[in-house]
């Protein structure tokens, strides 16, 4: 691919042509005689989406930040779409290679969907990552949560995402035991309070991690339900005929199924509890962390958040009081102004009366 991002469409398309030819060896576009079949390693990688990623790394600096932000989101979804197309195409190719008619897609697709379901239900991170290469859209809720957490943290991404409590407890029982021991050690001496603070921090970290795992598990359940809905749509004879004649229509159907499954689940009491727990455990962890930071700042004789908050609260009270007084003064002024003409007219009436009196007295 050329380094000039503006020439990318041509390079890109020629790359795709080569890639697909290599992958499928499609007769109509075969340009060389010595085309060798794709190796398993070629098939295992998502070359198309990876190439898009590489191109974007070169092209992104050309764009202004708002365009970059937006296009990054678009590239993310584009990659997911490419992955889906690659996987689907492989499936279609293998059906063709096996001498099956393309119309036998349904059985092949069903097998693929069943594998996805198994991966969703698996506790292995590896299996779930494998699923994400197939219709990766299912990952969006978790992905979005992690972006959000990242924006609230000094740590890049959600650093606890990779930790799987289920795996951890199964695989590293001794580690868990040590952790439990550490957390149960009573603090003594002048560092007692500090030790308790850090023990609590770890406890809260574990609680958040468990809540996150539960949320991710819930999202996996939604993934399973989505697949079941997709399978049902494929097999539902009672529905009016739905034509899937493009990758995009398949993608749209998949999104419909995901949204439907999601909407049903997120309105449940179980999800409301999981969602609340996710937010609450994160906040408890952050609050405790902030307290430790405040302690450290105090030790360094630097104003901390608690102190600044107190100042802001006092300032806010003063601001409210001054606004109330300002309003009172304005009201009084207005009342005074309103009285002035009446007072003036009273005064002039009095003056006229006394003038008349004096005139008549003169007369």
């Amino acid at each position: 691919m050329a380094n000039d991002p503006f020439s990318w469409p041509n390079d890109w398309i020629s790359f795709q042509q080569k890639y697909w030819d290599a992958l499928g060896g499609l007769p109509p576009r075969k340009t060389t005689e010595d085309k060798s079949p794709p190796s398993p390693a070629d098939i295992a990688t998502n070359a198309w989406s990876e190439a898009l990623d590489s191109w974007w790394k070169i092209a992104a600096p050309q764009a202004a930040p708002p365009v970059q932000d937006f296009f990054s989101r678009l590239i993310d979804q584009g990659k997911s779409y490419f992955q889906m197309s690659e996987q689907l195409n492989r499936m279609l190719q293998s059906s063709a290679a096996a001498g099956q008619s393309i119309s036998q897609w349904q059985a092949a697709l069903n097998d693929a969907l069943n594998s996805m379901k198994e991966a969703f239900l698996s506790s292995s991170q590896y299996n779930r990552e494998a699923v994400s290469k197939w219709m990766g859209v299912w990952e969006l809720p978790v992905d979005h949560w992690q972006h959000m957490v990242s924006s609230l943290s000094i740590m890049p991404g959600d650093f606890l995402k990779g930790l799987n409590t289920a795996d951890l407890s199964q695989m590293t029982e001794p580690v868990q035991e040590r952790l439990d021991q550490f957390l149960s050690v009573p603090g003594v001496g002048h560092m007692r309070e500090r030790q308790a603070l850090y023990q609590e921090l770890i406890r809260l970290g574990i609680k958040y991690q468990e809540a996150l795992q539960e949320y991710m598990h819930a999202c996996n359940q939604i993934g399973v339900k989505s697949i079941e809905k997709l399978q049902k749509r494929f097999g539902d004879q009672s529905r009016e005929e739905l034509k899937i004649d493009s990758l995009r229509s398949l993608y749209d159907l998949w999104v419909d199924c995901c949204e439907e499954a999601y909407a049903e689940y997120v309105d449940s009491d179980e999800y409301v509890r999981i969602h609340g727990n996710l937010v609450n455990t994160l906040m408890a962890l952050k609050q405790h962390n902030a307290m430790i930071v405040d302690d450290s700042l105090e030790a360094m004789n630097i104003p901390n958040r608690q102190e600044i908050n107190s100042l802001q609260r006092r300032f806010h009270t003063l601001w409210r009081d001054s606004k109330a007084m300002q309003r009172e003064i304005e009201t009084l002024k207005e009342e005074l102004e309103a009285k002035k003409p009446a007072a003036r007219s009273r005064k002039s009436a009095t003056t006229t009366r006394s003038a008349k009196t004096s005139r008549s007295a003169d007369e």
Partner: protein
Amino acid sequence: MISFQITPDKVFQEMVAFNRKLGKGFQNLLEAEEITTGVTPKEIIYQENKTILYRFQSDTEPKNPIPVLIVYALVNRPYMTDLQENRSMVKGLLAAGLDVYLIDWGYPDRTDQFLTLDDYINGYLDRCVDVIRKRHDLAKINILGICQGGTFSLCYTSIHPEKVKNLITMVTPVDFQTPGNLLSRWVQNIDVDLLVDTMGNISGELLNWTFLSLKPYRLMGQKYLDMVDALDDPQSAKNFLRMEKWIFDSPDQAGETFRQFIKDFYQGNKLIKGEVRLGEQTVNLKNITLPVLNIYAMQDHLVPPSSSMALKGYVDSADYKELSFPGGHIGIYVSGKAQKTVPPSIGDWLNERM
């Protein structure tokens, strides 16, 4: 039954076309000028801290002598009402002969974390209303509240009915616990005190996450693929970027205001129970006896129509009217259909009640 007619060849052609559009779209975006929002000229009338009161300028003299004040939500930015030339509710209201003012609450930062609902409603909003009343030498003005701004307007009108002539609420939550209100369901188990005490202000990112989580696959996935088609055309690319800018342009929420809004309105549903306290006063919707126009969107996924329609049962207005719009929470300001129907209807309704 599904008829499956995908072949490897078709997939290849589709992906090539997709990539062409992606490349063209990127070029269009690189060449696009700066994305502007808020197209109608306006002047600053009053400013206090981060709150700004604008008055929109019109080529013609307003037919209606009573100005209308748009009270927008604290969530997202008010330029949604004046997004672009052909998608501007403000332009529609001016064309209907109205004199239009708008409150922009700005972007609260840590210095604003102790601002309360009382500060916003009996403070900033009331002072803006007073400024307009004074400028026009009027006892009462018209108020148009949008979304959360509509809830604010209801609270305001119930406490200061002597300052409001007619009230319009648009996609406004009233009963916060009607069926289908996912936002309300989700916040029931959130420890709001812990949230606010920890965060100070509530970050726009957290709100975005919540709103986009309502329909994650459509709003974070499918939408971007749809846009690859639209990016082919420079004008569509710009329009899309404008919307995208608005969606992610989420100000942080002043902590104390957020605390009360979630606890009293979403968790306690106190607005309809007459139990919301703002400073020393209690909000009683029965105090609202003036004419009310309640506009809601039938496909609103943020504020279900049932939540807005509940208003009818809680106000004491003899002149209450509803207008349902066949669209969503955003479409009601920006769709082509909305431009033709919503602002003219508001104009007609207000002009009949001068």
